[in-house]
């Protein structure tokens, strides 16, 4: 276990921070799982934060000038460069502390919030560069599995079979015909000290992971599953249910990679069938039984692979 994490006891219902760094009144859709995850992550981090957003849903819903939901310093430059902007913020803090122009002992966590497109597609290069250079920052990908802000177009993180506006099912298509890109594995391949997956359904787990990500020295990456009722064609009130089902069906397993070692943080011994998860969402409505079988097989195999990673390493 990393020594930076040794003293961290974890959040519980009794010691939840009172601060809300992310203010209500923003313009997110009803039932948005992404803004919930964002709020929880910031709650875990507290007020001594500089936040960087990539262009995307969370950026536009939180900052229609002259309003802002950010009670912590916040900057948005563009879509693909949030990790690079954060690199600059982190480097500046380091040098300003060294030169006595910023209080030396004041801990400030630099955190990035970006969607799956801003992370795994257009922002992948900037992310990789920042992870490789070892900046002390937290990168949080809020993954709602498509380009929701522009009207639900497919991304590299869109799951197999999902209908989006650029992966429509038709005579020659059954929706997204590629498997979801494994961005946490890409992050882990950089040999960074901390990688984790989380969902707002297990909110203490999410908050603990975000806090650990901030506590470790060096880059940390947290991949958060973020239900999107608007893009997925699900009910707003089902967002938490879906976030839970994604874990219980093993579609979105919860794990940590600490210094290269995999730990499954929520073992699912009796998985629910994927169909239970799929049927709640209009984006999967067109799938045949065969497609669902195919998805089930893939999910089983991926989980096996993850178990082996957790055992062997």
């Amino acid at each position, binding site marked *: 276990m990393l020594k930076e994490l040794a003293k961290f006891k974890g959040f519980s219902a009794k010691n939840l921070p009172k601060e809300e760094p992310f203010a209500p009144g923003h313009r997110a859709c009803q039932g948005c799982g992404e803004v919930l995850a964002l709020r929880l992550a910031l709650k875990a981090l507290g*007020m*001594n*934060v*500089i936040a*960087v*957003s990539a262009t995307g849903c969370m*950026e*536009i819903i939180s*900052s*229609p*000038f*002259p309003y*802002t939901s*950010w*009670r*912590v*310093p*916040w*900057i*948005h*430059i*563009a879509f*693909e*460069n949030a*990790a*690079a*902007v*954060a*690199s*600059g*913020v*982190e*480097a*500046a*803090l*380091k*040098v*300003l502390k*060294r*030169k006595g*122009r*910023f209080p030396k002992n*004041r801990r*400030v966590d630099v955190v990035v919030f970006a969607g799956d497109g801003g992370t795994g597609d257009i922002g992948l*290069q*900037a992310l*990789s*560069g*920042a992870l*490789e*250079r070892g900046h002390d920052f937290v990168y949080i990908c809020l993954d709602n599995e498509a380009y929701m802000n522009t009207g639900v177009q497919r991304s590299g993180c869109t799951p197999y079979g999902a209908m989006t506006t650029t992966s429509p099912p038709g005579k020659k298509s059954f929706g997204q015909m590629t498997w979801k890109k494994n961005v946490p594995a890409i992050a882990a391949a950089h040999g960074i000290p901390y990688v984790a997956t989380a969902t707002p359904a297990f909110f203490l787990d999410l908050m603990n992971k975000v806090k650990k990500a901030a506590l470790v020295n060096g880059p940390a990456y947290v991949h958060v599953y973020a239900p999107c009722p608007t893009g997925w064609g699900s009910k707003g009130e089902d967002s938490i249910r879906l976030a839970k089902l994604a874990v219980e069906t093993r579609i979105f397993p919860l794990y940590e990679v600490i210094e290269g070692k995999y730990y499954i943080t929520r073992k699912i011994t009796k998985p629910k069938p994927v169909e239970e998860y799929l049927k709640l969402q209009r984006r999967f409505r067109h799938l045949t039984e065969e497609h669902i079988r195919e998805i089930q097989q893939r999910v089983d195999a991926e989980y096996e692979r993850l178990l082996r990673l957790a055992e062997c390493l």
Partner: protein
Amino acid sequence: MGKRIAKEVSIAVAEAVKQCKVDVIAAYPITPQTHIVEHLSELVANGELDAEYITVESEHSAISACLGSVATGARTFTSTSSQGLALMHEILFIAPALRLPVVMVVANRALSAPISIWNDHGDIMAQRDVGWIQTFAENGQEAVDLVYHAFRVAEDRRVMFPVIVNLDGFNLSHMIEPIELPDQEQVDQYLPPFKPKYKLDPRKPISMGPVGIPEIYTEAKKAQDEAFKNAYKVIVKAWDEFEKIFGRRYRPIETYRMDDAEVALLIMGSLAETAMTAVDKMREAGKKVGLVRIRLWRPFPLRDFVRAVKGVKMLAVIDRALSPGATGGPVAVEVRSALYQVPGRPRIANFIAGLGGRDVTVEDFEEMADKAYFYMKKKPKEPYEMIGVKE
């Protein structure tokens, strides 16, 4: 005063950046900018410059990291050329709109294709409208002096705009010239510490880079434009101050032998040195030719320019960039528009020369001046022509 010693211009520029005590440098290597950033890395590695050097993975990330850094309150520098500058394009607009005063040196180089590492102004002309203050250096000493000036102007609270200092790639960046680096005390006297009014600091949270709905976008742009135009006064005053401390005088527009000139060559950057030789030669032959050089390209010094060309019959505008299908090269289009409402304005002949590292010789300038004389009597058939094209 410092000593005048022979130095490669890139090295001298890096030394000047060091004297400006930058806090953060983020840069990606590209020819011919490399010697500047290599020397800065060396200075950081040796502990001669206390700065964070971010070895980013692209120019897009270089400028992005710079914006993050300067927004946090650190003095920030970057440098690039050509394709690298083009890759920054998207982010370049955002820096002035958020009033983030980064300083960048561009070692000007042609854009691909065909790929060329050599000098012209195609790279920077593609960034004409990004909203950065832009200056052009003629020689090594000026390149160095413009660096001090750039930080002083950019970080002035009445300005808070990023600055690009242009210097011709290879033709200037790789030359060894006698350059005087001032004493550190002089630089400190000229350049106060960077103290931005707004920065990213948890003790006083602000939101930077919000959404601009149609109700406020125009107003935001109007505010930016007004502030940019007002920067002119600070730019010129900073040169006045510069003269007081360092003894060298800089103006937005330079003129050479313009007193009774009928024909004026108009140039930007290092070509002016050759052009001056050509002007001397033509003057000896009895031709009334002068030279005008634009040092401050953005914001465009309209009044200074009109004053500089007053009384000239024919202006030979030499563009180092092509704007395909336009009514001229970028400089010609600019000055033609600038002069349109001026009574008794000179006529304009536009020459595209020195693309992708092609030398522009004294003879080329003579040819252009001769053509300008000819066009006084007979209107040119085309709005612009290329010089030195091999048949």
